[in-house]
């Protein structure tokens, strides 16, 4: 798989994928005009990872997601959940700022839907 690097913008997060790390990092705020278009390639990347890798970590540190970005994150986490359900070591590390109740609530919300290991880590 090829490395991916998308720089952050005002309304979209920084996205980094390095095949050697088996890790996808998403960091920043997310409220793009059309979040489905923005995340479409990341969904594909995640599906490919589920096919090819035995282990994978989603590292997320977002301070704000708008409603439609939240739905896209749900989709992305669902794909990771598929990997976990195939018996692979797929997990989520969710970092948040302790002052940011929204980020923490989002994490709890996502975690409640999912069965894969979901670590909520304050920093």
């Amino acid at each position, binding site marked *: 798989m090829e490395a991916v690097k998308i720089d952050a913008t005002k309304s979209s997060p920084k996205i980094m994928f390095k095949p050697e790390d088996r890790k996808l990092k998403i960091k920043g705020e997310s*409220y793009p005009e059309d979040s489905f278009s923005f995340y479409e390639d990341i969904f594909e990347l995640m599906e490919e990872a589920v096919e090819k890798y035995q282990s994978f970590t989603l590292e997320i540190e977002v301070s704000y997601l708008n*409603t439609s970005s939240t739905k896209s994150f*749900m989709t992305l986490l669902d794909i990771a959940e598929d990997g976990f359900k195939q018996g692979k070591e797929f997990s989520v590390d969710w970092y948040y700022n302790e002052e940011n109740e929204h980020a923490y609530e989002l994490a709890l919300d996502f975690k409640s839907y999912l069965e894969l290991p979901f670590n909520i880590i304050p920093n």
Partner: protein
Amino acid sequence: MENKNSMKSQITKIVIITYIITSLVSFSLIYITLNNKVEDLGTKFSIQYLLKEKNRITTPIEREIALAQKLADTPTIKKWTQNEYDKELKMRAIEELESYRKHFRDNSYFFIIDSSANYYFNNKSNEFEDNQLRYTLDKNNEKDEWYFATMKEVDDYTLNVNYDRELNTTKIWIDAIVYNAKGEKTGMAGTGLTLDKFLNDFLKPDSNFITPIMFDQNGFVQAYKNEEYIKLSAITASLSEEKNKTIFDLLNNEDQNKIKNVMSSLQNEKKEVGTTKINLNNESRLAAISFIPTLNWYIMILLDSSEIFNIWDFTPTIITLITSMLLLVIVIVYFINKIVINPINQLTGFTEEIAAGNYEKNISIDSENEIGRLAGSFNKMTSTVRKHTNNLEQLVEDRTEKLTKTNKELSKKNKKIMDNINYAKYIQHSILPDVNKYDDYLEEQFIYWSPRDLVGGDFYWIKEIENRLLIAVIDCTGHGVPGSLMTMTTNAVLNRIVDKNSIHDPAILLNKLNIVLKETLHKNNDKKIKRDDGLDISLCSINKQESKLVYAGAKMSLYYTSDDQIKRISGDKQSIGYQYSKEDYEFTTHEIDIKNRNFYITTDGYLDQHGGEKDKRYNRKRFIKLLEENMHKDLKTQGEIYIDEIEEYMGTNEQRDDITVIGFKIKPPNK
């Protein structure tokens, strides 16, 4: 135009300065060289001149001296001095004297016999024939003093120069001492020689730049144009200790020494002529001196070289030189102007035209030198620039035309889109209920509905059914036009469910809404399409008779006043209408006593708005605090405060999401 930094004035300055310096140096060199040459020539001339004069003076005098000596040595004469009155001897002696008289240049002689001091004399006209004894010298007579002095001091012969004021003649007297056989001085024989002719010849040279002087070993002047300096006799003078004028009285100390040095060098080194430079009356003179041994005199000439060489004699030459050099300078400056400066000025003017953007001109310099070639290059350059400029202008024109066309099309399209959206806004507004129509249920209320764009995904919904009033705030996925389409669909679905099934229980209604929306939105979806739409909602049902409010929520909360606090009921963590929304999900029902409470619902657009000093989310805590601070005010005022608050918080940030906030107070049941 002309300034002092222009090339023209610089070159002119340089040429003039060079001209002046060169002229000064050349003229100085010429002057010095000429002066040296003239001095050289003057020296040579002086030497020749002196030698000639020396000969001219010496030769006749020496002859006379020799003759006088011979006379004094004649045996007859000698014997006569011993025996003056011997007639035979006297006759023979007079014969002898008369014979010598014919040979003397002056045709005169004198003869003195010491024993008697008798003075014999005859002259050219033979005036005293047979009467040669003229008188007897008297020791006590001042006039005769010379004889006795000479006899005492002179051993061979002496020369005396006498200036006769009355006759205005200068005579040199040659006095030769006569000895007897025993070697005793017994008399004196001699002759006079009129020096006038020699001296006049000497003192009046052909050239007016020569001043001749004669002086003796002590410096007493013997001949000089200024006769004051000449005394009757040098010897007489020295004896009488008169303060006679010497050559040295004419000179300053330094020059006196110079002359003395030359005099001694003539004596010691046997040089014929010596020269030196002295000042006479503050004018430079070349002095040439020679010694005449026979006279024991020095002859000197002072040469005024400035009379020989005068720089002003060269005036015509100098003027010619200056004029021709000046002409040369003018010609050079003229040609520098013509060949260099004027073309450069032309070029400068030309480049200024180019700088001003005028590429149409061509420069014309008809010369094949460097400047001509430069002008040629300039012309080439401007024509290239002209060509490029024209091309660019054409290109810009073409592009502008295209852009204008595109712009027109774009603004046309934009207008069309905006028209559409404006119309959509009108339609969306039409589904929003008029809250004032529900006076029966609501005592006061405010509604703040502010989509991020012209239309949005937020809306509120009010419906009366079976003595109940249903109030809902809905946040559909997305905003703008897509969001507004969702609101239209949702509005229709809600109305249909309520009208068709008379459902007024919020939890059941949400469940039904979820099922119908999923059916409606995902009819053709397979799982591969990740786009997913749905909504969050707070739904309240007001039952006036029972004095209670029933609430159910899907990811949206209800806030209400309780004493001095705001309480919050979180909606269920189950969105509505999404693919993953569970169709069998049972929403939680909450019942709240309406007693004099305010109820508030907000979409997350208010809570998520970024701004403030730290550019952070507004957030729920702050929202609840805001409500608590203002809960006792009337709701209309509260609505205005909440609008101002979020707008102030937003500042210059953009609105991130659609915002809807409602607040209401329910009328108590009719008693």
